[in-house]
Each structure stands twice: as C-alpha cells, then as structure tokens.
C-alpha cells in the first residue's frame, strides 16, 4: 500500500477536490498493482506539525508534500529522502522540466528533496472595475443577453476575441455620450464565464476602442435580479499598475482609486473604497520590507538585529503603516474586522496582495482582475514564492512506488489538468506554459523570475519568528507603537529565540 499525505481540506473548492479524486482513481486504474491510500491532512499551518508528529510516532506516509515555508525542518533532519538516486537511474525523468524557482528550495548540498508540485508567487491583484470610470448603464439589450455558450478550454480560447455586433440600444446610448463606434463596429469578447450547471454563459466582458480610448461593457446583475449592460471608460480613474511600479506610483494610484465619505472622519467612518487591503498574515506583509532592500534576517538566517531594525526595513514599515494611519488607504486590523469580510472580495478595496489560489474565488465571482508586482522603492521588483513539492519520506516502505507516484503526478498532462482549476502555477514548466496565453497566468510566470523563497527554507524555527512578527504588527496597530522601536525590540527577541 502506498500512503500519501495530501495537503488539503474539505474547504477546498468542490470542483477542485473532484478533479483530485479523479486523478487518484486514474492512477489506480493505470497501476492496478498499487493500493493507493490518500490521507487528507488539513492545511493552515497544521500540515508540517502533523507530519512531524507522524514521524515521531513512526507512522510516516510514503509520500508527503514539502511546503517551502516549513521545509528546513524536514530537509535538514533526514525526514525526507534525497531523490537524486531515483532521478539518476530514471531515463524518462528530467529535472530541467521543472521551474528552477520552484525547485531551488528543495535542493541542498547536491541533494534534491522534492519534485515541484505547484507554486505561487505573491502578487498585487487589482480590480479593474475600480480603476475604470463608469459612464452609464442601460437595461441589458436582448441582443446582448444571448448566451455565448462554450465548454472546455479550447472553446473558451476560440470565444475570446470573437466579434459581435453592437446592439441598437447600446449604440444609441453610446451616441448620447459622444461615443460613436461606427456602423461596422463590433464588440470583442474579452472574458466570459461559463456556468457548468446551467450550461450557459452567465457573465461576460466586451471591449471596444473609440478614438484611441478603450472601453469595456460589463454585464452586471443588481440585487433585484435585473441585469444591465454597464459601459466603463478603461482606466478612467487611474491607469492600471505597470509591471515594476514604484512606491510613488503606488501612492498616486491609491489616491486616485480610494473613495472616502464626504465628511470623512477616520475615528468615525470607514472609507467607501480602500486602495489596498491588509491582513496581519506575516508572509503577506514581509515582502513589503524587501521592496525597500530591507530584510527580516541576515543572509545566514541566524540574526535579526541589523536587518529587521535596519534603516531600510524601518523605512519600509513606516511606508506600510502610513497606508493605515496617515493616508487611510488600507484598513487597520480593527477596521478590517468592522468591515466583516475580505474588502477586496467585497468590492471595497481596489488592490490586494495574495497568491494564485485567489484565482478560484475571483473566477467564481466573475471579477475583472489584473496582476502586477508589489511596488518597490529604488530596487528591481521582488516578491516571495511559495512552492510545494512532493517528497519521499525516509521511513517510506515503498520508495520505488512512491517515486512512480511522484513522476505521474508531476507529469505535464496531470499538472495541466490541475492547473486548469486555478489553484496554483504548475511546477512543471511545459504544463504551466500551456496556459501562458492567459494574461493572468502570464503575469504569474513572469513573477516567478523575480521571486525568492520564504525564510522557512533556511530557518527551522521560522514559525516562531513569524509569531513574533505578527505580535509586533499588533502592537503597532493597537498601541500605535513607534515602528522603529517595535522593530528593534522584536529583532532582539528573534535573536534570542534563534540563539536557543
């Protein structure tokens, strides 16, 4: 029996889980001699501790997921096997088929401890609709309400770019706003959402150009169920962020896209639209420190003083905290709770710093989103990458079968099917590049080139460091502690913890 500890929980999208089950079934059909036992282990920081407990109890599975953020403890202590012997004797397998950026975390002293499964760099998502200016809306013309049904990726690619005539109602409405698309003008389908259950296209976005200006027509449903065609002037409020933008450009954008009540008082009111959202999850905000050339630890990963409390880090953290306290472009921890939901998902924030996994939710909510880099200050763009690999444990009872499983599940075909669900970028280069004509996927592939792994690749006790950083951010929010002081004290606490 081959035991595989799968990282995931029932919370994961139903469609995604059904695909996973389908893939496991197919593997078992292809290898009737293998009895595959999948053991679901919840994520959210519990996977690594659970694996350590299984190691301690002598009940380690054959295959486990190696998450870069917690990998040091497994790779430095002989919990997972070096896969080089398997790679060297397998003529069908080439390490070069995988992204270096997704593989580097698993390499140490000539050994390879995991084969990339999937990964995500952290990127700045932006909601295009909040960057565009709404011009007008009209009841959805019958000619536009016709469905654009498609099924499958190829059909969707064919649909995108298809030209449809402008309906008379829309043409009249556009003319009354001085926009005359011309008698032969067509709307180009830029995005469509197909609902598999109703077998129809439930959302679409059409784009057209007039006098050098881009426009978007979106299908919107109101609370009472009526539908409208809404015309937006693209980038009417602020230009979409460029790749490699700067802190200053970011602040200009924040000013343009945030919306405050008429007599806004910070102690009383919440902004109507935040420029960017924030949550106190340490992996989500530490890249801000990197964007100014600062860092949490020294390159060896054994000291925080001189780095976390260094001038570059202090400046970066001041920039970040100014977003809450000075400009009110981002919600404080308390404001976020008052909002009650994720402001970006709610249409109350124009930008959000997250990973590829959000694609599932954004697709489900038919968000018109774009992706760019985290803004930097005088240095090239940089971000963090969270790769996950498949590893064979040292206590595996069937290492050869485990290797076969890893090869199968990291292969191009299997990976391409997983990636179509949107949870992450495939570690398999060819599988990921199959989706490269999608601008969002393209942006993620581009972001991998500027990404560096998290500190958990080097530091065994990084979970403890993260807890100290989270607490520091709380004291800044709740007690309005001076940033430099908070960083200095936390750096000392981290040093003491790492010394132990």
């Amino acid at each position, binding site marked *: 029996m081959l035991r595989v500890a799968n990282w995931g929980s029932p919370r994961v999208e139903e469609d995604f889980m059904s695909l996973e089950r389908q893939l496991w079934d197919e593997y078992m059909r292809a290898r009737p001699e293998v009895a595959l036992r999948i053991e679901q282990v919840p994520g959210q920081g519990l996977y690594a501790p659970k694996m350590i407990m299984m190691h301690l109890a002598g009940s380690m599975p054959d295959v486990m997921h190696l998450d870069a953020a917690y990998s040091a403890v497994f790779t430095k*202590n002989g919990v997972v096997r070096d896969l080089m012997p398997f790679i060297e004797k397998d003529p069908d397998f080439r390490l070069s088929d995988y992204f270096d950026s997704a593989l580097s975390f698993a390499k140490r002293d000539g050994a390879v401890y995991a084969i990339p499964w999937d990964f995500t760099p952290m990127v700045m998502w932006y909601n295009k609709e909040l960057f565009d200016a709404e011009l007008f809306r009209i009841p959805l013309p019958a000619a536009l309400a016709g469905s654009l049904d498609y099924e499958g990726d190829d059909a969707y690619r064919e649909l995108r770019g298809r030209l449809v005539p402008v309906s008379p109602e829309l043409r009249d409405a556009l003319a009354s706003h001085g926009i005359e698309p011309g008698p032969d003008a067509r709307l180009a389908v830029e995005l469509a959402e197909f609902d598999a259950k109703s077998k129809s296209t439930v959302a679409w976005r059409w784009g057209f150009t007039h006098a050098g200006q881009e426009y978007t027509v979106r299908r919107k449903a109101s609370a009472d169920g009526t539908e409208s065609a809404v015309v937006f002037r693209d980038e009417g409020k602020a230009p979409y962020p460029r790749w490699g933008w700067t802190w200053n450009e970011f602040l200009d954008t924040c000013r343009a896209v945030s919306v405050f009540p008429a007599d806004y008082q910070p102690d009383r009111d919440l902004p109507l639209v935040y420029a960017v959202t924030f949550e106190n999850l340490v992996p989500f905000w530490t890249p801000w420190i990197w964007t100014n050339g600062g860092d949490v630890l020294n390159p060896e990963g054994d000291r925080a003083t001189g780095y976390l409390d260094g001038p570059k880090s202090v400046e970066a953290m001041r920039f970040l905290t100014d977003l809450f306290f000075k400009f009110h472009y981002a919600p404080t921890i308390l404001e976020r709770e008052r909002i009650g939901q994720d402001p970006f998902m709610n249409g109350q924030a124009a930008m959000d710093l997250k990973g590829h996994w959000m694609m599932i939710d954004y697709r489900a909510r038919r968000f018109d989103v774009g992706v760019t880099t985290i803004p930097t200050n005088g240095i090239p763009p940089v971000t963090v990458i969270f790769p996950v690999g498949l590893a064979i444990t040292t206590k595996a009872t069937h290492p050869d079968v485990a290797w076969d499983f890893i090869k199968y599940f990291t292969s191009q075909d299997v990976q391409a099917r997983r990636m179509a669900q949107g949870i992450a970028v495939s570690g398999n280069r060819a599988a990921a590049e199959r989706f490269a004509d999608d601008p969002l996927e393209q942006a993620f592939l581009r972001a991998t080139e500027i990404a560096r792994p998290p500190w958990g690749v080097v530091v065994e006790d990084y979970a403890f460091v993260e807890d100290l950083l989270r*607490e520091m951010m709380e004291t800044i929010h*709740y007690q309005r502690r001076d940033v430099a002081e908070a960083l200095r004290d936390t750096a000392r606490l981290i040093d003491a913890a790492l010394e132990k």
Partner: protein
Amino acid sequence: MKRTAAHSDARDGVACGLLWISPWLVGFAVFVAVPIVLSGALSFCEFDGIRRPVFIGLEHWRGLFADPLVWKVLRNTAVYAALALPVGTVLGVAMALLLNQPIPGQTLWRSVVFAPSLLPLVAVGIIWTWMFNARFGLINSALALVGISGPTWLNDASWAMPSVVILGLWSIGHTVVVYLAGLQDVPRELYEASHLDGAGPWSRLWHVTLPMISPAMFFNIVVGLIFVWQIFAAPYVMFPGGGPQRNAYFYTMYVYDQAFAYRRFGYACALSWVQLLIILALTAVAFRSSRHWVHYRGA
C-alpha cells in the same frame, strides 16, 4: 479456619474486581500513567521530535519563570476562570431553577438548553466566529436593533476575553442537567416545613434549595475548575495565535504551540506539569472549602 476462608473470599473478590476493571486499568496505564511519567522525564530534556532527547536538567523549569508569555497566559487563564466559573455557576443554577418550574413545553426547553453542549468544540468555535463578526454577526445585529453599536469582538483587545466568556456560556447545558437532578432530589417536605415557618421564596432558595443542591454545585465547580484551566479548542479556532495582543491566549494553547508549532516538546512538558500542579492545588482548595458550604443529606 473461618478467618482464613474470609481472607480467601476477600482476595478472590479483589482479584475478580481487578479482572473486571483490567481493560480500563490497561488503558489508563498505557494512555495516561505512562505518558504522565514520560512527560515528567521529558521536561528535563531538550526534545524537538526529530533528534534524540538531550538531558538539560532544570533549564526548562527555570526558563518558564522567566518567560513573559507564561505569565501572560497564566493571567489570561486565571481571569477567564475567575469570570467564567462564577458566571457559569450562577447562570446554570438560575437556568435549572427555571427549567424545574412546571411550565408548558418543559421538556422542549430543557432540550433547547442542553442541545448546544452536544456540539463539538471546534464547530462551536467556528459558529461563534460568525456570531461575533462585527458587521454581519448575529450579536451585533441584535445589539443594533436596540440602537447599540456592537464592538469588534474578535479584534479588539478589550473584548477578546469577554467574548470567550460568553462563548463558554453556550455550553452550560450539561451543568444545568446536574443542577436539575439535584433540584428534583430536594425533599418536598422541607419546602412545606419552611413554608409553614413563614419563609418566602428567597428565603427558601437561600436556606433550603441551595444547601440541598450544594453537592451538585460542588461537583460542577470542581469539574468546571478543571475545564476552565484547560480551555483550548474554541478559542484556538476563534483566535488563531491568541487574538489581539494575545488577550485570548490561554495556557493550553501555549502548551500546544510550544509542542506542535515550535517543536519544543521538553518545554511543553514542563509547562504541562505546572498546569497539572495548579489544577491539583485549586482542586485541593475547593475540597477543603467544601467542608464549610457543602451539605450532604444524612451526613
């Protein structure tokens, strides 16, 4: 001769008794006694779950007194115990008194009060995370109906502790059941006698009901004392990382984090032993004080 036979019978009885409880004895030895002894030994070792344990003497025991988080979680847990236990006791008794009245739908009301205590604690934590949601939660929505703007329960440092106390009241059903059983055991003649003596409702409550259910109260207080000092699952779900400024970070959560998040198993064992000693001491105090306020019928 008779004495020898009696001894033999007694020995047989003991052996038979031991045989009957042997499954429990084996389970207790393997899953409780041995881990307790091992945890005591590990508290003197550095052990990360992967490398072999290394003996370090009293380092953990000395270290925990200098650890500011230990004092923080001790304080939080003590404050929680000081709030949750009296409030839970008063509310539990009050609820039992109400449910003991001959009202229409009595069984239904009793089920309603008891049912929440059957829910798994993790599910309770998730439910209450939504109940306490500042914008969409039921509690703030109810407060808004009477013109009160509710707090940001889960992210306001000053409201984190009260929210855990309120959450604790959700599952007082099992204590209410014990009080109800106690109430139904109070002899009616005592009420009749006190009534004849001119005692009013409050006087009957104070001089008859409460003394007569004091054994049930004592049982609930001791069990509750142990429970509140071990509070873990629901706040762990509601306040990942201990909540705002760690104001909802309780002792067992810290033990868990030290062991399973930071892999400091030796230190976690030392912390567990301190917790055990605190609970033992408080239970001993409760037993000693019981002589003065617990009344057993016929004693």
